[in-house]
């Protein structure tokens, strides 16, 4: 098979916040690529910069406090960071779209879901009135909403959380995007509803060849959904691996510790490993490796220089001095 070109390529992305207490380096030199039809997981703890990475890609970094100060975001070879606001509005929704944790932030409570879907379709395709309702119903059935003909007249508050999230999904896929970013999109859903939603995303992906970025703090989502994983810590991606390699051979001490600290639903664990301390404040990052204050393997070099990327397997890299 000929080598495919990535649909999305992020190079040395930097997004900083300028605050009273200093510069918060929320995204600090993030690079990765995403192939067509691939699912990439970005895992990390609260504040590690996952959402800011996504918002930087979408051109939605909160202004004026935040600013993307460097890097490239190449979608099909075109740098999104060079686009104007109005060009980005066209690109968002058509080529790249995002689903957030709380569906109510994406839905308007005063319009029916039908109206919102039809409005989206109208804006996107300059299409005229007729046929749009049918397309909207069709989209609702694509996201497996039962009796879409009646549901289309519902207001968001008349639906359950799981159904609302499906509507958001329907709006997201309505423009046939190439890349979907799901930022903790299933976190607030109940287990069986989350499961249905994840299955749905899988099916949509199979049908459309969509590439998905899953942003999560849950290794279970990664295990279930992703082909490849990036682990983020303090604004940087510290390990990249194909999903099985990450689980079989976590290489960065942070990844290893994190995996040993999550309880296991499939077997009884004697005692969980507890990582000491907490993630560093991003405006007061230590020199050298940001994980050093919590790392059981820390040694002298870690305190002075940021670790380079070390290849530990095929397509498997980690930033850690111990691995050299």
């Amino acid at each position, binding site marked *: 098979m000929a080598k495919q070109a990535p649909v999305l390529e992020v190079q040395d992305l930097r997004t900083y916040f300028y605050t009273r207490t200093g510069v918060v380096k929320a995204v600090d030199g993030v690079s990765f690529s995403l192939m067509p039809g691939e699912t990439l997981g970005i895992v990390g703890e609260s504040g590690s910069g996952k959402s800011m990475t996504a918002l930087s890609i979408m051109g939605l970094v909160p202004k004026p406090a935040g600013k993307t100060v460097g890097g490239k975001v190449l979608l099909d070879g075109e740098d999104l960071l060079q686009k104007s606001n109005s060009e980005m509005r066209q690109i968002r929704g058509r080529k790249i779209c995002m689903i957030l944790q709380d569906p109510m932030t994406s839905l308007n409570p005063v319009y029916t879901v039908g109206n919102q879907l039809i409005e989206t379709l109208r804006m996107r395709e300059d299409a005229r009135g007729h046929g749009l309702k049918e397309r909207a119903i069709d989209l609702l059935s694509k996201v497996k909403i039962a009796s879409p003909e009646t549901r289309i007249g519902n207001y968001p508050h008349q639906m359950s959380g799981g159904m609302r999230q499906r509507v958001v999904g329907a709006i997201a896929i309505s423009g046939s995007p190439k890349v979907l970013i799901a930022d903790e999109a299933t976190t607030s859903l*109940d287990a069986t509803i989350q499961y249905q939603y994840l299955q749905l995303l899988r099916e949509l992906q199979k049908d459309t060849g969509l590439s998905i970025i899953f942003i999560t703090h849950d290794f279970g989502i990664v295990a279930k959904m992703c082909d490849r994983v990036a682990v983020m810590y303090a604004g940087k991606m510290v390990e990249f691996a194909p999903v099985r390699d990450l689980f079989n051979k976590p290489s960065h001490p942070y990844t290893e510790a994190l995996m040993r*600290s999550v*309880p296991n639903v499939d077997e009884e664990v004697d005692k969980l490993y507890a*990582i000491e301390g907490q993630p560093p404040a991003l405006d007061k990052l230590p020199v050298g490796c940001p994980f050093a204050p919590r790392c059981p393997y820390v040694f002298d070099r870690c305190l002075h220089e940021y670790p380079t990327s070390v290849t530990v397997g095929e397509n498997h890299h980690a930033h850690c001095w111990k691995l050299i």
Partner: protein
Amino acid sequence: MSQNGAATSAVISVENAQKYFPVSKGVVVRTTIGHVKAVDGVSFEIKQGETFSLVGESGCGKTTTARMILQVEKPTAGIIKFQGNDLATLRSEQYREYRASVQAVFQDPWSSLNPRMRVGSIIMEPLLTNRKLSKGEAKEKLESLLEEVGLHSFQGDYYPHEFSGGQRQRIAIARALSLQPKLIVLDEPVSALDVSIRAQIMNLLRDLQERYGVAYLLIAHNLATVRYMSHNVGVMYLGKIVETAPTHELFTNPMHPYTKALISAALPSHPDIQREDIVLSGEIPSPLNPPSGCAFHPRCPFVLDRCSKELPVLKELKPQHEVSCHLY
């Protein structure tokens, strides 16, 4: 369930507890149009030093059950016994003792601590009002409590906002521990915390249980957390316990179709783990109008004819393993 009758070591036992909330209509003249059966006949007991977990999806009645034990909510019917004594018959002295013996730690460590009080005062407050300790004795107790939960004694002078989420949860635990409770209700105690902090708190809770023999009622939607923390588990669906068993038994041999579906929906711990696919149709029904017969029947992949007509009851199918389903 207890073989030795009165000598049971159950700290708390709940017998057929119900909580119905009236649903009313109208602004000027309110008329009751029905009841939400939030908890509809729930029974379990928790022994000293053990953790009993309630699992199930949102709205199934877990928190309402806990609130009845905490006496924030008065049961519509049923009996709650503390160390063998019916709460409804306790005299005021005993009742005060009960309130001190049952404490709680909630999900949100931000809203559960008074932001204007120093942490030391927050922890000592129950000590000073409930136990007639002198200032000096309370101070000594405070220091040992802070240490117990992994904080420094000087941190008693700080305010809650000066702590991280995990540290605030430690403060809430120290406060809950201060009166040497027999039971602590843990309502989603780690779900608001960072992944790396959760293990610290879970381990702390397990250590404290081992040291003091305190019993826990744990409410958590994360099954992995439940498996790590509990001795026994009850699975709730629409106000009822549909299956209960010791933890290992429940996870390795789930029998109720809903339990099976919950476990099959749990996210895997490794990409190679393939689960039996049990796909549930539809959404969780409203407890205002629960389906007839087995409330799970509209979603159950194994539904039988009689399921929509007859209400199944809990049956002990194996020692300590009870299931309420017409399949058995």
